[in-house]
């Protein structure tokens, strides 16, 4: 989340290919006399200038910086590709990447699976109060990530409800500060992520399921299909679009994970919950190795772009 701005950049681009198609169609159907491209450029100018200052120019500078060793103060020295080549042999980055894969499971795969199951079970027509359930389940989506971090810090605290519950059921021996534990901090944060992204998955799937024409279900029912086959032959294929959107979104959320980790464990204990963005932040600002931080940013962008493009391609390819 936030990241949540955060969460949202990714959410948008899936519109890209389809939008492109719409544009071609529109062009053919009539070159409107309302089109005045030079005037358009004038209207676009403020946005373009802001975008150039904040995004385009720094992206270029980031690539350039990634070829240097620089501590942020003294003169930079040329580093060639060394900020990239050491990537996976660097123990900090190596664990950050491993944690990312682990987080993808908790932020993406798990919520999508749970979301599909519960959406399928709950999308019956004529269910009263469905709106209230939807609003409740959706709630974590709008809550400030910094607040989510505080909330889960309390839940996992030594005197928190998880330990209370364990003591209650006679498992007092395994209570601990979950976020301070080398083994358990990572899955504990993962579950917080599942909690945070599950709602979006479910609500998205429910609203797409409602758009499936009932005739499709009637057709398979005539063939004598049960609810399970119904799910796999009708529901699942119809949800390819939303699944790919949510997949892209949550995967990038996992790749970029920062707020939740920084505000709870700061990547610790040790480096047991460190993420690429935490490494980037520390190298850029705490203990400057700016070139390396920039290289992390470049690689993260490339990975995000590839993830999104692959998911969009796969979803489109299958749909045709």
């Amino acid at each position, binding site marked *: 989340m936030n990241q949540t701005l955060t969460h949202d950049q990714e959410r948008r681009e899936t519109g890209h290919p389809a939008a492109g198609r719409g544009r071609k169609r529109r062009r053919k159907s009539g070159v409107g006399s309302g089109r005045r*491209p030079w005037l358009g*450029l004038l209207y676009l100018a403020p946005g373009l200038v802001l975008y150039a200052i904040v995004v385009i120019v720094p992206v270029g500078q980031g690539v350039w910086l990634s070829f240097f060793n620089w501590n942020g103060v003294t003169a930079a020295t040329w580093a060639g590709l060394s900020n990239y080549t050491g990537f996976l042999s660097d123990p900090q980055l190596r664990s950050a990447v491993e944690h990312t894969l682990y987080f993808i499971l908790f932020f993406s795969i798990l919520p999508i699976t749970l979301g599909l199951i519960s959406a399928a079970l*709950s999308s019956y027509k004529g269910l009263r109060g469905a709106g209230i359930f939807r609003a409740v389940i959706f709630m974590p989506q709008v809550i400030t990530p910094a607040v989510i971090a505080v*909330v889960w810090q309390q839940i996992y605290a030594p005197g928190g409800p998880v330990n209370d519950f364990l003591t209650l059921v006679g498992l007092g021996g395994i209570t601990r500060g979950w976020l301070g534990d080398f083994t358990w901090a990572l899955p504990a944060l993962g579950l917080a992520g599942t909690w945070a992204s599950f709602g979006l998955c479910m609500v998205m799937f429910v609203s797409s399921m409602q758009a499936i024409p009932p005739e499709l279900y009637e057709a398979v029912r005539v063939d004598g299909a049960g609810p399970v086959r119904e799910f796999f032959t009708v529901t699942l294929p119809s949800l390819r679009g939303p699944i790919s959107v949510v997949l892209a979104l949550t995967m990038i959320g996992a790749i970029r994970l920062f707020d939740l980790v920084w505000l709870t464990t700061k990547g610790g204990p040790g480096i047991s919950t460190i993420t690429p963005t935490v490494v980037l932040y520390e190298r850029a600002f705490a203990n400057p190795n700016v070139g390396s931080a920039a290289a992390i940013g470049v690689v993260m962008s490339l990975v995000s772009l590839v993830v999104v493009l692959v998911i969009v391609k796969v979803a489109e390819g299958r749909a045709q």
Partner: protein
Amino acid sequence: MISRRERVMTYTLLGIVSIAVLFPLVWVLFQALSPSSVGSIDLAHVQWSNFITAWQQAGFTQYLKSSLIITGSVVILGTLVAILSGYAFGVLGVTGEKFLFPLVLIGLMLPMEAFIVPLYYDFLDYRITDTYQGIILAHLGMGVSFGAFWMRTAFRAVPSSLGEAARIDGAGSWAQLWRVYLPLARPAVLTLVLLSFLWTWNDYFLALILVSDPAHQPITLGLGAFSGRYLVQVNLLSAAAILVSLPIIVLSFIFQRQFIRGMLSGSVKG
């Protein structure tokens, strides 16, 4: 259409899921109301004053002021920029569109990590770190891609004959935008305003990097600072967390439909 058994099962399932989602939030709410500073819940002695104490101890008055200035400016200016850019791409067309439109769209896919490090050093050069202008500028620049794309889609849904009719009546492009296109795109603008509010208010990372002076930091950083103190009083921390999320929760209840629809179509659109 569905059997009683199915209905009961569905309600049970939705109930379990809702409780699982709500439990952590309700727990924190109860902690915030309890007198115990180590987090035990005691609703027999509800202590509303925790909210006031938390507000004072965390110094939220200044943080809230900053958050309001930052979020307010970003929402207003960002929406304006989005309207202008969307009108350009969606209605007027743009010279060099074949190059410029993909360039703007790429911003939708780039994570902040791609440019945040050099952006910080640029802002140091411009001497706008630790200022409202700096963080507002950063939010605005990052919002251009989504805003332009979003408003372009909205303006394209307006039948061009309407703009055409206004043009024949002598309306220039500016008047057409405000009198014809914008009124018809009002729902899209409302959604954009809500999303922009949500994203700016919730931001932590950008502000953490660009604003290190507490006098200009938004309330999310105020909460972070409060939770990082050496001896944390859990009930006060919980109260502070609730205060920070309150505006968004209230907004999302008032505009529930727009929020859900916006966040869903914001992702599915196209």
